[in-house]
């Protein structure tokens, strides 16, 4: 059994003590052994979302995983590993097993987008500033027509028309930059996790540079299509990615969607913290729903239902 070192920051002493007790309770039950360590020695960081931004920023450059702990009613940050306070032992156990799977994957290097992939530069810049607190100042991105989106304190802020354009995929943002300006009067806010979803969907046709083309991915949680807005192809991809781990190629063949759409979906899910990479051995070929032979009643029936629901032209 592997042993990983974990450091917790930003917690009150009693909460930190409770977390350490949980590590002991989980001994022998988790996929790996977890021992407390200093920040410098740790493999994984367990951080209160309000922890020292400088420490979080330094950690993010290490490329090692971080588990964020948010308040009971806090918005989820765009990160793959998030726990909500108060944390229960089984929740922590499940989360650490997910992190163990992540650590077993070949370490992905540099999350900096290659030059020329502007869409990924926007995504990378958002990933870098998404967790900044308002006290550290605002960051803003602008599109060619002068619309602005501010990010700070776990939320994105923009005028209603800009948010509508964002939701409809009509906003081509530049990279996020520090600003001394505050959001415009009348700006509305949305969780930065939702902004991350839209930025991911607006990404390049290629697989996001921080995702491994050889890895398999599964959804750990469905996107809230009621809040984010639904498109048929995204519903279908989510259904497939929720059912089993899939490589991008398998997801494309199984859903019948173009690889570019798959790549954008995976980027969006990853940016929004909804995606988990799993060891490729767990990925199983999926039957293409488009190519599946007609079964007695079912396929015809679902086909009719899809027509009724407007899921096909």
């Amino acid at each position, binding site marked *: 059994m592997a042993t990983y070192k974990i450091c917790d920051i930003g917690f009150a002493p009693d909460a930190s003590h409770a977390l350490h007790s949980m590590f002991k309770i989980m001994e022998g039950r988790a996929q790996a052994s977890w021992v407390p360590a200093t920040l410098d020695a740790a493999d994984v960081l367990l951080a209160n979302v309000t922890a020292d931004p400088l420490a979080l920023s330094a950690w993010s450059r290490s490329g090692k995983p971080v588990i964020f702990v948010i308040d009971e009613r806090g918005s989820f940050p765009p990160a793959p590993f998030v726990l909500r306070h108060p944390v229960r032992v089984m929740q922590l156990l499940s989360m650490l097993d997910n992190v163990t799977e992540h650590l077993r994957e070949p370490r992905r290097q540099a999350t900096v987008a290659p030059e020329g992939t502007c869409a990924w530069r926007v995504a990378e810049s958002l990933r870098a500033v998404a967790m900044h607190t308002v006290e550290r100042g605002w960051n803003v991105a602008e599109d060619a027509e002068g619309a602005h989106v501010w990010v700070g304190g776990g939320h994105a802020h923009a005028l209603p028309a800009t948010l509508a354009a964002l939701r409809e995929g009509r906003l081509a943002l530049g990279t996020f930059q520090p600003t001394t300006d505050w959001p415009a009067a009348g700006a509305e806010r949305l969780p930065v996790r939702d902004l991350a979803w839209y930025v991911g969907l607006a990404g390049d046709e290629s697989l996001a540079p921080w995702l491994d083309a050889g890895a398999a991915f599964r959804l*750990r949680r469905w996107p*809230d*299509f009621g809040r984010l807005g639904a498109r048929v192809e995204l519903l279908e991809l989510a259904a497939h990615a929720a059912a089993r781990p899939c490589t991008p190629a398998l997801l494309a063949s199984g859903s019948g969607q173009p690889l570019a759409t798959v790549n954008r979906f995976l980027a969006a899910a990853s940016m929004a913290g909804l995606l988990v990479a799993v060891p490729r051995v767990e990925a199983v070929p999926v039957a293409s729903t488009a190519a599946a032979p007609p079964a007695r*009643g079912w396929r015809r*029936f679902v086909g*009719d239902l899809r027509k009724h629901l407007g899921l096909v032209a």
Partner: protein
Amino acid sequence: MNDVAEGEFKIVFTGPMGAGKTTAIAAISEIDPVRTEVANNDRMSHEKASTTVGFDYGRITLPGGGVVRLYGTPGQPRFRFMWSIVGRGAAGAIVLLDATQPGALVQMDLFVDAFRPLVPEGALVVGVGRTTEDGALNSDTFASRLEARGILAPVLSVDVRRKADVMLLVQTLACILETQNGNAYA
């Protein structure tokens, strides 16, 4: 009832009192829904004037002649005996919740636990209403709760008074069913 070979297909809408089950069925049913409502004498649980005590029923006829039967369960736990009766043979279940209700998370657990065994694995969608109101839990909180329990089900913010939102719930369920059944043919 869920005999697709015979062109029959059953979806169950469930959830606590006041979550909008009757409204949701009425939003997409092609017939005026059959209701079994009586005056609500449990005003402690919800202020609504009437509540379902048997089941609601609506219907959608598909282009190929198939029929989707929409059933709504009673929301009050004292009518729990009806849940397994109404849920038997369902192709999928849609759990509706009100995010402003005290104990909405516990209610979700109650209905998800009751209906998961009654439907094919994974064929369950959660719709949460009133998530934008003051003091309401957001949909992430519900999804997080399910995730912590090892349950992967869509949790969608909806307003069941809007037909498009109810259709989204059914569309999501249809995508899940199609994925499962497409895979079953492999």
